[in-house]
């Protein structure tokens, strides 16, 4: 039953009817329906594990449905595989990247369709030219010759987008394309989508960010526990209503920070932290019971700061002081020994043992501390603890013995969070902790962060979602080009002030350098000026 | 190693480069020992190299190439495959490096002499004793160290041919190859013993095979088998002393090394050389193992 819509174009482009899909032990979809109309952006929302990605995988030919029919442009559709799907005009950007890390951007974009000079001989020059042309047309900040493995997650996402659009698809499916993007990049992406949508094309857009859906989508389809709930017009429905349909209940009100904690003792001082690659003289302190937000544009150095603190990357200089005494950290193990834990922004690469079960992942960090005597593991205690976290974080999994690989993206993220909760660190550095997490669960995680802070734990929260940073932080550290450009109290922090400091470019702009009180010669700006002269 | 080997030696010392068929095995170590002893006696310097197995023909060719590059005063060479080495031997000849073949002959006119024993004849001697030990009839097995190398095939064929011609009532089982590895030979032996309850004897074609056979028979607990071996070495000599092994044929590798250096020195000094120098072989068993002439050819 589709709600009446004001949109005049009602031609169905893609229809999904009565689709069932089960995995061993999991019924991911049952009697699923979906209708994408030509010329629209259809948002698809649902909780973590609701079955969104599974449906998209059916549409892109990665999985085959147990039952059900697909129709494209009125024609019945059988999708033989990923390649067939693209040939039919269905392009997908998966939630988990499908990139080849050792190849360049251009090589990734045109993989499988390389321009050739003879049957086997590649035309590398044309490849790069085509890629540059495509990237230019899409206004993406990418270098066609950059090696994809060296790019940040955000830039890798851009490569996925370029790759999907290069097929000139009729239907473009985007599975949480903005999870790794900050606001500016999201704007770029939306711009792209608007240009892409023509009367004969359509977009299915999966996201957990409601504001974003309001901005880009025409209609929204809600699913819950693998079943179709409803499709509504975005303009005619409030966010609260959509969320209520999603979670099947009303959510508690926003939890905000509990006030600035200037009175608390300083737990960790970071002074003059520098790395060869990026960081310059990063200095800040963290108080007990404080949530310290970190804001900045992509590549500002927030992740690098975190990795440098916990000893994941080599440091060029700087001093860490914990509770007044200097500490040295050469390896993440040292950091954890001092009670500093780091949750990475890239769960697949740095967070999870994908081929191990939920239990093993949740208990990994705390194993030696909480679940062993004399080196022997207490399996029962580990299992009990894992089950507890599965319950309290509402991780959707058939059991704690499920292989993590088979969890939905958001539930994987919850597993990583559970791992750090189990380890019980005094200082937790959460890098993009809500990436890929549904609205309901997000609230729960915010609450959790507040609870932790109230217990006296200190949290550094790196986030590319400004509203999140503003809502959660007692103070906000703003970074740009590897420097801390400003530390704002909650009272002074706003979208505008943060963006101002996040876009300062002291290395290239003398004015900006002056504003930060930096000596222009020392920063190399003078050299730059000379170079231009 | 003895002081003659390796780095020592001033410029005036004659230098003899020896490229052998092997290096790690006892037999080759005994040749090396003889060569080094004789060299230090004569005031010469020797180097001794050989590939890890007798199948590594190319590696031996590389070794030969490298040794010729050092312009030695004489070259001792035991060819794994004479044809492969011929161009290099010609090169040595053109550089006026006298070449002495050892262990087995080389199909070439370059070597001035060949210091060797007749593997086939030695194997035939072992066959003769085996036939006597089992009383001229019954089943006999063979554990051979290699199915392609000259020493492996000659010691196999010498045994087989003698049996065929002189002991028609003896059934010789298909030879099994253990690569000269004691453990593998022991495992093979146990399989042979358990699948041939009526077995009367086993012939082992080198030291590694012999030790393997001894171990395999001991472990299988089978009594009354006649074991005939090849080469010497402490374990084998002990087994012969205590009766586990009936006897063995041994060549005289230490003497081979010695004769090799003697021939090389003669060549360096321009003296005449006989066409071949036979270093001989001996049968030894419990009765004569302590005879001085036997004790002299045993190495351990």
């Amino acid at each position, binding site marked *: 039953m589709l709600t009446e819509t004001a949109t005049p174009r009602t031609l169905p482009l893609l229809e999904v009817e009565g689709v069932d899909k089960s995995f061993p032990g999991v019924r991911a979809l049952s009697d699923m329906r979906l209708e994408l109309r030509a010329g629209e952006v259809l948002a698809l929302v649902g909780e973590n594990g609701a079955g969104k990605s599974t449906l998209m995988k059916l549409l892109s030919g990665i999985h085959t449905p147990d039952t059900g029919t697909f129709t494209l442009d009125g024609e019945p559709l059988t999708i033989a595989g990923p390649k067939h799907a693209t040939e039919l005009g269905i392009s997908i950007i998966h939630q988990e990247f499908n990139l080849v890390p050792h190849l360049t951007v251009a090589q990734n974009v045109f993989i499988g369709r390389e321009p050739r000079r003879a049957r086997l001989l590649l035309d590398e020059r044309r490849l790069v030219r085509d890629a540059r042309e495509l990237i230019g047309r899409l206004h993406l900040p990418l270098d066609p010759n950059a090696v994809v493995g060296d790019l940040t997650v955000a830039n890798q996402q851009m490569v996925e987008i370029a790759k999907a659009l290069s097929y000139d698809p009729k239907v473009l499916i985007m599975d949480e394309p903005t999870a790794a993007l900050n606001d500016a990049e999201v704007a770029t992406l939306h711009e792209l989508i608007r240009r892409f949508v023509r009367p004969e094309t359509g977009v299915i857009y999966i996201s957990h960010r409601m504001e974003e859906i309001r901005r880009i989508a025409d209609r929204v389809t809600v699913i819950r526990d693998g079943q179709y709930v409803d499709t509504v017009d975005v303009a005619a429905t409030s966010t609260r209503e959509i969320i209520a349909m999603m979670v099947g209940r009303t959510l508690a009100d926003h939890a905000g920070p509990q006030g600035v904690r200037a009175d608390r003792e300083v737990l960790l001082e970071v002074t003059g932290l520098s790395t060869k690659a990026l960081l310059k003289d990063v200095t800040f302190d963290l108080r007990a019971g404080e949530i310290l937000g970190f804001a900045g544009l992509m590549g500002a150095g927030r992740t690098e700061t975190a990795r440098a603190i916990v000893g994941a990357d080599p440091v060029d200089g700087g001093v860490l002081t914990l509770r007044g005494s200097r500490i040295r950290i050469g390896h993440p*193990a040292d950091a954890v020994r001092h009670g500093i834990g780091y949750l990475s922004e890239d769960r697949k690469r740095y967070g*999870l043992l994908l081929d*191990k079960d939920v239990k093993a992942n949740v208990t990994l960090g705390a194993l030696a501390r909480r679940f062993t005597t004399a080196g022997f593991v207490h399996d029962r205690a580990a299992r009990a603890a894992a089950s507890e976290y599965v*319950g309290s974080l509402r991780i959707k999994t058939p*059991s704690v013995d499920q292989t993590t690989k088979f969890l939905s993206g958001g539930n994987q993220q919850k597993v990583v969070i559970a791992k750090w909760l189990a380890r019980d660190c005094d200082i937790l550095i959460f890098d993009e902790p809500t990436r890929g997490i549904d609205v309901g669960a997000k609230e729960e995680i915010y609450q959790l962060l507040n609870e932790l802070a109230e217990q006296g734990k200190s949290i550094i929260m790196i986030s590319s979602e400004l509203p999140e940073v503003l809502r959660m932080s007692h103070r906000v550290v703003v970074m740009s080009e590897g420097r801390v450009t400003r530390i704002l109290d909650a009272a002074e922090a706003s979208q505008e002030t943060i963006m101002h400091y996040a876009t300062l470019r002291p290395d290239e702009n003398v004015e900006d350098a002056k504003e930060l009180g930096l000596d222009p010669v020392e920063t190399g700006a003078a050299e730059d000026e000379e170079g231009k002269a | 190693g003895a002081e003659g080997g390796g780095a020592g030696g001033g410029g005036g010392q004659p230098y003899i480069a020896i490229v052998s068929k092997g290096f*790690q095995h006892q037999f080759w170590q005994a040749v090396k020992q003889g060569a080094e002893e004789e060299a230090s006696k004569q005031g010469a310097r020797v180097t001794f190299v050989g590939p890890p197995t007798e199948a590594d023909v190319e590696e031996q060719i590389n070794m030969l190439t490298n040794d010729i590059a050092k312009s030695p005063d004489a070259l001792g060479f035991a060819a794994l495959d004479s044809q492969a080495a011929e161009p290099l031997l010609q090169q040595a000849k053109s550089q006026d490096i006298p070449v002495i073949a050892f262990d087995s002959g080389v199909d070439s006119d370059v070597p001035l002499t060949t210091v060797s024993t007749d593997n086939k004849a030695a194997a035939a001697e072992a066959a003769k004793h085996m036939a006597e030990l089992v009383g001229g009839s019954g089943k006999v097995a063979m554990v051979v160290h290699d199915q392609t190398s000259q020493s492996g095939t000659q010691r196999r064929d010498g045994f087989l041919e003698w049996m065929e011609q002189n002991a028609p009532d003896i059934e010789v089982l298909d030879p099994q190859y253990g690569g000269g590895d004691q*453990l593998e030979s022991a495992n093979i032996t*146990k*399989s042979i013993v358990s699948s041939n309850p009526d077995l009367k004897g086993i012939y082992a074609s080198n030291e590694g095979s012999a030790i393997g056979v001894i171990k395999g028979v001991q472990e299988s607990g089978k009594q009354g088998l006649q074991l005939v071996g090849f080469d010497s070495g402490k374990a084998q000599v002990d087994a012969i002393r205590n009766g586990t092994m009936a006897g063995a044929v041994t060549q005289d590798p230490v003497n081979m090394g010695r004769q090799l250096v003697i021939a090389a020195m003669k060549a360096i000094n321009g003296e005449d050389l006989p066409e071949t120098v036979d270093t001989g072989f001996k049968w030894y068993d419990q009765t004569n193992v302590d005879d001085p002439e036997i004790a002299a050819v045993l190495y351990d």
Partner: protein
Amino acid sequence: MVTTREKSGVAGRPVGAVVKGRLQQLLAFASLIVIFAFFSVASPFFFTYGNFTAILFSTVVIGTLAIGTTFVIITGGIDLSIGTGMALCAVMSGVFIVNLDLPLAVGLVATVLFGGLMGLVNGINIALLKIPPFIATLAMMLVAEGLALVVSGSAPIYFSEEPAYTKISTGNLIPGVDFPNAVIVLIVVAVIAGVLLTKTVLGRYTYSIGSNEEATALSGIDVRKWKIAVYAFAGLFIGLAGIMISARLGSAQPATGMGYELQAIAAVVIGGTSLSGGKGSIVGTLIGALIISTLNNGLQIMSIPQEWQNVILGCVILVAVYTDILRKKEA
């Protein structure tokens, strides 16, 4: 306050998963059974007590090496130094017990520790100096090969004066029952290794490192330390294998060992341990080692000409592993 949701049902799963896991191992075992059954029918000499102990006996050295290497391979590494390293350990055993005339127990412990030392050096090269495991252990393989010759003076060291030493391998613990001690040693170390791999922190971290080394490190586990520990631990098995082979032969043979590494690794991989790390088991490794030694034994027992034995061995390994893959897919 976090609301718990009791849902997420399917309580029966864990048991199912466990049974499935067991079944998969049983299936690798099934290949072995088929091979056994075939030879039993094909040759009257195969199915005898004596031949069974012979097969077990011939599994001991490769099995011991393979058990240690299982840990290394589960971390995603490899150890090529186990073959020649074993020869070096055998020689060291000779040096300790024969040349230095240390008491037997001291000599044995010293040999095992010497193996551990070699593993430690491998571990340091790999974990601290970041040299790829293939290269680090290849270098150790060459060094051990050379040192075995140097230390022994290129001659075997005989344990003739040490009858107790050879008893470690060839003696019978229960007098009168023909069951070689070597097999008992293998079983005991397999059980110990199995417990360590499945029940202890060392084992858990071994799997974790192989599954995702970076994630493990970022979880606060000192991956360098544990990798060193794993290689050193695997080294103990090199030492033990050195004892087992020299005790069986009654002598330390410096030139032996080359090629054993490939056989041991093959046993591990046939047993279902993945070379890319993260999964594997001791039981699987033992089954893998048994498959190889049973095939070798059976083909010889059947008096197949030796040049054909390798051809058949290769084909049977292919078929056995392929059947395993098929069955796992179906399970």
